[in-house]
């Protein structure tokens, strides 16, 4: 663990400068990329597209629906795409169906620029290449904390205390913001909180959920305490809406994604005076466990199994060109994400991700049935947080919904 951590940190800190190079690809074939549609990925995909030549055809499809079409698209022969840009969650369905190919040979042949930390090994085989990291982090208003003599919270208990102090001092009525909107966001919030307990989500060696225990109830109670200091509309809070609240000085603490931090600390934004006072630290832990209550995510790419070796070779080379140090040499691109790419110099927005890693946060589990639990959590916790149900009842509902889904999917008998 420690070794990898060190090498990752090294990757984030960055090592080599980049030498300008043209995309030169050996062999001929076609590169077909399926990716999500956002700016950081666009930078990568656009560079891969530069590799188009007389012998290499490059087509790209950047769509927000990539997750829903990838399995169907990669299961035809030949697959509709050679490269699928994935995250640790969305790689799982491809692995479940056995639709991706091991990349060991390609890495050996063309992967000189890759770092050990970028290789996603599953059972010893390289199945994907990571190039970006992400996680939630605690954003706070340095000026408000200082004025009120509050130390930066390192635990949720301190966070609640600090919120209470701000309310008492009459500074802010609802100083907390966390994405509690039911669905994916709320599920993620519980998973993050539960991660802080260090307990497993499932019984060892089975798909039976293990969250209906003291740790689960404690995690829920902690979330409930947070709601005390959140606004009345908290059940609609999500990361798209956080900024207006932040800019209106309604909140002093926010748990938010590292990939969106840049907008909050942008001193050319709507409220430079607030942006200048916005800082990020690792997510707090709770219950004396000292583990940041968050999950770590990576974005990377995997390659289709049902394609010719020629297509695989050119596609991999195109991606290697895209992920060369030149990608992050451009300061604008470098600021878009916490890159894992060789040559990246960490930007302020990446500080929280690194802090989380150093404090011992764990990655989002790649267990095949984690997604089902995530959905069940997202759909069944709202009543508890709104005070219509007890924590036990809520967890019972979650377990029932999850068990039904996992039975249907063949994970529980």
């Amino acid at each position, binding site marked *: 663990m420690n070794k990898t951590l060190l090498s990752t940190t090294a990757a984030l800190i960055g090592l080599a400068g980049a030498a300008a190079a043209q995309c030169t690809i050996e062999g001929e074939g076609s590169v077909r990329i399926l990716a999500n549609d956002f*700016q950081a990925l666009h930078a990568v995909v656009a560079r891969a597209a530069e590799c188009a030549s007389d012998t290499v055809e490059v087509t790209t499809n950047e*769509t927000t629906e990539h997750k*829903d079409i990838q399995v*169907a*698209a990669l299961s035809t022969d030949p697959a*509709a795409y050679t490269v699928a840009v994935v995250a640790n969650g969305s790689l799982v369905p491809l692995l479940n169906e056995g639709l991706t190919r091991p990349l060991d040979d390609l890495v050996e042949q063309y992967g000189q620029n890759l770092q050990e930390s970028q290789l996603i090994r599953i059972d010893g085989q390289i199945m994907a290449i990571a190039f970006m990291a992400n996680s939630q982090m605690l954003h706070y208003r340095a000026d408000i904390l200082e004025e009120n003599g509050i130390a930066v919270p390192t635990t949720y208990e301190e966070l609640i205390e600090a919120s209470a102090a701000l309310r008492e001092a009459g500074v802010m009525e609802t100083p907390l913001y966390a994405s509690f909107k039911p669905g994916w966001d709320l599920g993620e919030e519980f998973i993050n909180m539960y991660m802080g307990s260090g307990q497993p989500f499932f019984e060892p060696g089975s798909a039976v959920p293990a969250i209906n225990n003291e740790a689960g109830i404690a995690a829920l109670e902690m979330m409930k305490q947070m709601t005390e200091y959140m606004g009345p509309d908290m059940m609609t809070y999500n990361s*798209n809406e956080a900024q207006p609240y932040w800019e209106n000085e309604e909140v002093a603490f926010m748990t938010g994604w590292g*990939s*969106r931090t840049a907008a909050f600390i942008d001193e050319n934004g709507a409220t430079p005076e607030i942006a200048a006072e916005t800082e990020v630290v690792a997510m707090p832990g709770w219950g004396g466990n000292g583990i940041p209550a968050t999950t770590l995510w990576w974005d990377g790419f995997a390659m289709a199994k049902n394609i010719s070796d020629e297509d695989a070779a050119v596609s991999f080379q195109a991606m290697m060109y895209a992920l060369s140090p030149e990608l992050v040499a451009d300061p604008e691109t470098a600021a878009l994400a916490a890159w894992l790419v060789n040559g990246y110099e960490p930007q302020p927005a990446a500080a929280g991700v690194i802090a989380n890693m150093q404090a011992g946060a764990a990655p989002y589990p790649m267990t095949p049935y984690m997604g089902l639990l995530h959905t069940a959590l997202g759909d069944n916790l709202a009543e508890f947080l709104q005070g219509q149900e007890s924590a036990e009842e809520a967890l019972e509902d979650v377990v029932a919904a999850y068990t039904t889904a996992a039975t249907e999917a063949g994970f529980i008998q």
Partner: protein
Amino acid sequence: MTDTTAADAKLATPRRRRRRRSATARSLPLVTLSVGFVVLWVIAAAFPFLWTAWGSFKVEADFFSRQDWMNAITGVQTIRQTGDAFTGDGYQGAWVEQDFWRAVINTGIVTFFVVVISLTFGTLGGYALARSGYRYTFWILIAALIFRAMPHVTLVSGYLLPFFQLGIWGYLATTIIVLVAINQPFTLWMLHSFFLSIPKDLDESAMVDGCTRFQAFRLAVIPVMWPGVITTGLFSFLLAYNDFTVTSMLLTAENQTMVPAINSFLGSTQAEGKVMYAVAAVVSAIAPLFVLVMFFQRQIVSGLTAGAVKG
């Protein structure tokens, strides 16, 4: 009903002119009530859009402000960030930077073909359903209703694998035919009702005169069916124009229509969006519709006045 318009008057048959003379004056309170109601409705219907149109020239911090909603009107942040109370950044971003015009062209192609094909299939089918007395027509109509009840998202998930296997996924033509099929139950029902209201004698007398069924349809029915067809066409148009479920799942990024393109401007949980691009895109997409509706309302109003329908 009895009132006429300048447009009507031009198109009106002598018969209609005769009717106009018999119009009686309406009571003032009733007119006030009726006009007041329409005014209230138009405000309710148009205000959010006008608000959006105005806001599309502001920056995000103004339009989606929690400080004061007046910011969206005065543009405090817009002035601070761009130096002017109005900014075209959203439009610039959507049209120039994000190539929104591509999505507009795709939407044009999709809606045009969906409307034309839906109406062609639908008028033929709806006419046959309205004129055939056999019992199976009833069951076809019921089957169509059941087809329409199935949620689209379920249907679309089923399309993915076969479409990829056949190699027809991602193309505009595939999406067009899927939208036509999904919309067909509605079109059939609507046109079937309209054809029922066209007197049978009209085409039957044509057939007595020696026309085949198809000739009777073409010569006697087509000339009088336009109001129904245009109204149905309007809904086909809106379905194709506003569809998200089908177009977002069945089209590649370059073939995307406007709505999925707008959706991709909105961002996701982990990635920030460009909401003002989306707002600007929506506003600019509405403008051509204004022309379109202005054009077709004349058809709707004047089409039926020919008088042939009610004989």
